[in-house]
């Protein structure tokens, strides 16, 4: 009996304490959601290949240039146009978010895996603002511009039965980037990676990769190799 009274009193005290300390009106106003600006998304021509990063909408976060961010959005990255599209559930519209208003975005690609894209100015061929995926953050960063371009191929009939010779093809471009040295192009293979180091460094790097049992055969192993090399303090040559 006494225990029950004590329990009830404790419950009451805890409740009143919580009331005292946080008797604030709940903030149910979503201030940031309404700041998303853009134009209506118009579907692309149905060629062979895939003009998006992913097949479906992914939950993601956008970061505005002003420093604010909005989370929990249905996002889709158009690798063809280098635009981020979001699905506004309230008005059931696919909207291409104004690139000028964003600093970047991130996508949830499977449990615990976040893909981070950052808007950066690219000063090489086809100058302009681009979304780069950050594969490795450090000094320098390893970035990839996931470009999909229209390329000619042998003639085929598309979904509507129209004869065409165009297809969406991946044209991914990898870069080492540091604010001081700018962009250094690299291909995700062993030879291209080695070429980015001094001759004197190449031998110990080969040894290091062997020791870590890394064989560069795809993007994933390339990123893993770079992370191991970077950890050992090897520097790339511009």
């Amino acid at each position, binding site marked *: 009996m*006494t*225990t029950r009274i*004590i329990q009830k*009193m*404790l419950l009451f*005290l*805890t409740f009143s*304490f919580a009331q*005292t*300390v*946080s*008797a*604030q*009106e709940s*903030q149910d*106003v979503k*201030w940031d*959601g*309404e*700041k*998303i*600006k*853009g*134009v*209506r998304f*118009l579907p692309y021509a149905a060629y062979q290949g895939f003009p998006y990063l992913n097949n479906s909408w992914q939950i993601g976060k956008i970061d505005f*240039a*002003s*420093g604010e961010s909005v989370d929990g959005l249905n996002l889709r990255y158009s690798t063809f146009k280098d635009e981020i599209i979001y699905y*506004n559930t*309230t*008005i059931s*519209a696919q*909207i291409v978010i*104004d690139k*000028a*208003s964003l600093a970047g975005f991130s996508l949830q690609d499977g449990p615990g895996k976040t893909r981070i894209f950052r808007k950066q100015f690219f000063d090489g061929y086809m100058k302009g603002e681009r979304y780069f995926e950050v594969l490795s953050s450090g000094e320098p960063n390893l970035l990839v511009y996931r470009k999909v371009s229209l390329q000619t191929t042998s003639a085929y009939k598309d979904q509507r039965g129209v004869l065409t010779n165009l297809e969406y093809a991946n044209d991914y471009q990898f870069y080492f980037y540091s604010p001081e040295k700018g962009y250094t192009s690299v291909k995700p293979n062993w030879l291209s990676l080695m070429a980015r180091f001094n001759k004197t460094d190449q031998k110990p790097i080969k040894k290091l990769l062997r020791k870590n049992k890394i064989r560069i055969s795809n993007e994933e192993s390339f990123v893993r190799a770079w992370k191991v090399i970077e950890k050992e303090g090897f520097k790339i040559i511009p």
Partner: protein
Amino acid sequence: MKKITFIFMLLSVITTIMKAQEKSSFGFYTDRDVYVSGETLLAKVYTPEINNSTMVYMDLVGPFGKRILGASLEIRNNQADGYLQLPDSLSSGTYQLRAYEKNTVGKVKIIREIWISNRFDGLEKTNQIKRAAVAEIKPDKKTTEISIAEIQPEYPVRSSINASIRIGESLMKEIDGNLLVSISQTEPNFTSATFQVQSDQINEGKNQDKGMVLSGLVTDKKTLLPADSITVYLTIPDSIPGFQYYVTRKDGRFYFLIENYYGSVQAVVQCFGNTEVQRLKIKMDELFDGTGTLSNFTKQPVSEEFKTNIKRNIDAVTLQKIFAQEKLRFSAAPLKKRAPYPYYGKPNQIIDPQLFIDLPNFNEISKELLPGVKFRNYNNEPSLQVLNAPNRIFFSEKPLILMDGIPIRDLNVIKGMGTADIDRVDICQSERFYGDLRFAGVVAIYTTKADYSNLPESDQLIRLKLETIQTPATLTEPQITEANIPDLRQLIYWNPSTEPQAMLSVKCKTSTVLGQYRLVVRGRLKDGTLFFKDKPFEVK
């Protein structure tokens, strides 16, 4: 055992609540206790740590309970400082200076009673002054761990003060935030009283943890009931206009977060009915709280010495005005990150009609100069359509029409505008989205006058002059080069953001105003205790 556990838990809960309340202590200080109308009052506020508001409001309430003016101060590190420019027209009397945060845990206002004398009307006929008959808050703790050295008991006019403030090691570890160091004239016949009142506001609005919140209510003019699902627009016209919207719920209320704006800002709040016939009314909430019920007061006799001192102060302030000895130097407002382009998107076309032939009205302008814009005025019923460039067809709906960044629906407002009235026209020839709003193209007209005079104010459109976050200011010493021009400062040092250091030095000059002065160091400890140390001296 259970009883011991229970007692222990009870004690810990009580201790935590007491600690929370202690930390909720407000500290509110002004540079002086006695002012003359037309002067600038400087203040510092220590805000309760447990509140997460980013704004503290400071306002002045007159002897009869009327709110006179106020300022919105930005809280940084649980403290804020600001100023009020006391109007010249204030009559002599006891005023209440209030500091409060909105919708916070404590829901308290801290009130500081100050005396203001009218500059043109002395105290010759005044025999009594009103003082609030309210229990004062616990006075600040006078610390012994601060020593103020190198302050002489007397200083001649225009002489240098080189004071050093030594803070004990144990106190240094306990200080929370910055110190307030000030040297000002004191008035022995009037000491400000500080007291707290519980907020009697029924609706304090949203918690202001992100910035200033502007709120109001939309009612249906026909039913007089709160209007549901009404989109309320807030526009802050500027070179790149700011825009927000809010869709009301059943309670008809709307809220706007005013971020990154400093000083006085023009704003327009408007709404449109969901049907052509629906008529609405917007009522804005007051930014500052109502004055509520005034506390009881007592009357105290006025001493002759007080009258003499007030006369001296009035003379000093009048001469200060004559010699234009500005007290404050305003810092540039922190640069806000501006949007790189207007909220309606990057325009496809930017047209400057003044570069072309003179055209008398918007109909002619649209026909001759604006590509993809169809403005017609058949039967005196104007219509406007914009080309949807990606689909190569005109939108069937009316586009978003803006005048100096402010949305308008009534095309009669623009139909008479000729090339002389228009500075430029931005056109967006695509379907634009802003949050959940959809616009069938945009036509943004920027007028040459840019004074919003074409916008008729109504129940559905309110023009506001918003007092946003006060621009920071610092006290300056006047640059007086001629010896015959008096230096008439009664406040000779004010630094509300002094970084605590073991050894602090205060360098300033006394003015030509004689009287009793006091150097005060104020601060707050991590446990919320407010402390001070002072040292008086006289300027002869």
